[in-house]
């Protein structure tokens, strides 16, 4: 048996601001990971990445990240992606400031 699929979210950076964004169920891009569509199977994940990449005038660098689903919504499993949900640790800049 293949190993179980880890839930995923499609992420990218916004073309104009460079800001981290996540793909939602209704084909929008959100600044907040909470709004992201959680992808539960691989084939659907591939489709969503293709959709993301087709949005080439709005977004840059589309890829999938691993998440765990918690009561607060999806949370990244890797520290790099966790930093991307917040911003840098040396200043209160980026998402931690904007979404606060």
């Amino acid at each position: 048996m293949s190993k179980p699929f880890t839930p995923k979210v499609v992420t990218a950076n916004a073309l104009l601001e460079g800001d981290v964004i996540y793909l939602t169920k209704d084909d929008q891009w959100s600044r907040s990971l909470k709004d992201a569509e959680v992808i539960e199977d691989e084939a659907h994940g591939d489709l969503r990445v293709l959709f993301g990449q087709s949005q080439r005038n709005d977004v840059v660098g589309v890829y999938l990240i691993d998440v765990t689903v918690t009561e607060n919504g999806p949370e990244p499993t890797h520290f790099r992606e966790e930093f991307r949900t917040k911003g840098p640790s040396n200043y209160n800049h980026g998402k931690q400031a904007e979404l606060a």
Partner: protein
Amino acid sequence: MYQYNSFDRDFLAERNAQFRAQVERRIDGSLTEDEFKPLRLMNGLYLQLHAYMLRVAIPYGTLNGEQMDTLAMIADKWDKGYGHFTTRQNIQYNWPELRDVPDMLDALGEVGMHAIQTSGNTIRNVTSDHFAGAAADEIEDPRPTAELLRQWSTDHPEFQFLPRKFKIAVTGSPNDRAVTKAHDIGLRMVRNDAGEPGYEVIVGGGLGRTPMIGKVLRDFLPKADLLPYAEAIVSVYNLLGRRDNKYKARIKITVHENGIDTIRDLVEQRFELLRPQFGGVDQEMLKNIEAQFTAPDFLTSSVAPFKDAYHHDPVFRSWVDTNIEKHRNDDYAIVSISIKKQGQTPGDATSEQMRVMAEIAREFAHNELRISHEQNVILPHVHKSHLPEIHARLKAVELATANIGLISDIIACPGMDYCALATARSIPVAQQIATRFDELKLEHDIGELKIKISGCINACGHHHVGHIGILGLDRAGVENYQITLGGDHTETAEVGQRAGPGFAYDEIVPAIERIIDTYLDLRTDADEPFITAYRRLGMAPFKAALYPEVKADAA
């Protein structure tokens, strides 16, 4: 200092207009990201973790007050009110928006600055000794050489698509403050037996994945032969350098695989062909450039106010003892302004701090500033009588930290707080080490010590050549920090030795503390610096302190 001529300015204006059109075409969808990315990189624009980043070159680290003011203005108008000075003598803006970048570049162009050749497989911003033109130990000011190389390499038709990026550093002193042995080409000014100035030419140095100390290609190259010889090196590399594997593409690997003697033969052959083609044009260029790097009109007033303040004010005295370097004129001093107050981000300056430094430079320092590869700002020419006033003004904006060369004067790359390539953070590690030793009040007792931190194997933080080097890695999804000891970035350059297994994020500061405790215990006296003690003692006692459980097992 060097003034851009109308050719340079027209060239910049044209490049900026081109890039503005490219940005518009990207935004309206006529360019894809695949098409646009190489274009933006050529103009210094990167996409990082949280935003774009604009990297601006400060050629050989030299700038004047107006340029510094412009950097401050850009930080306020299009960024978040600060900039980050890097080990490559660049400044990076971490939060620009794509639409604003052409305006930022135009503003830079107005003061003769740009972001060209800060990326791509070209000859990058030429770096140099930050004390150039001022140091007491200098043979000649290396900046005319650096400027000549800049003019020759900028948009050089043959060298826009090298196998990999190419970095050149020049130092005008036998004491190497430009880390020349860790560059693709390093030039160290020396004299031959007849007393004429020339260069020791070093090739194939570099840090990163495969750290190597450069090898001497020529003991002595007459000054007049520089450009044909440099062109010979780069064209031999252009042909021989590997393009099949990005990790084997730098000239250090070419030298390593072919052997220094083969490279030398090829370079000399090529040089013989090229030399007649230069026909003295380069020497004309150099003469014009040199004329623009004349020394300032040094003042000849009394230094009594300095002596007085030094005698009476202990805070000022400590700052002078730590941050001032000997100038070639006895009445003058070289001031290193620390932009590394303990707990702050190494290399960051706010727009207000930039403006204060610009103002000081104009009023008291012949309008000259430098950025060092150690991520500090230098006032190269200060009459000693002005030191008390300068110190007071710096203090008012938290720029008077007396820590140059000490444990909190840490080089740290942006790491995973910004950089998309990072495998771990470096900034908070630097902040915590600096804060910790400041609390312990041990900094001055420890004395000279270079800690250098990189957030990945690319080694922008020069960790290999730190007395203590720290490399942040991703080990199975957690940050892990590897320690190297005994590195040296000077003319006696050496790559540090790995101490052993890495440390978790919350273990790295205690680990550094154990190294320092061991040094303080074992040094012969307070005059034996860390690096000397390490060379005498070797790795063993430090290893034992770092990994006590291993020692216990062996016992």
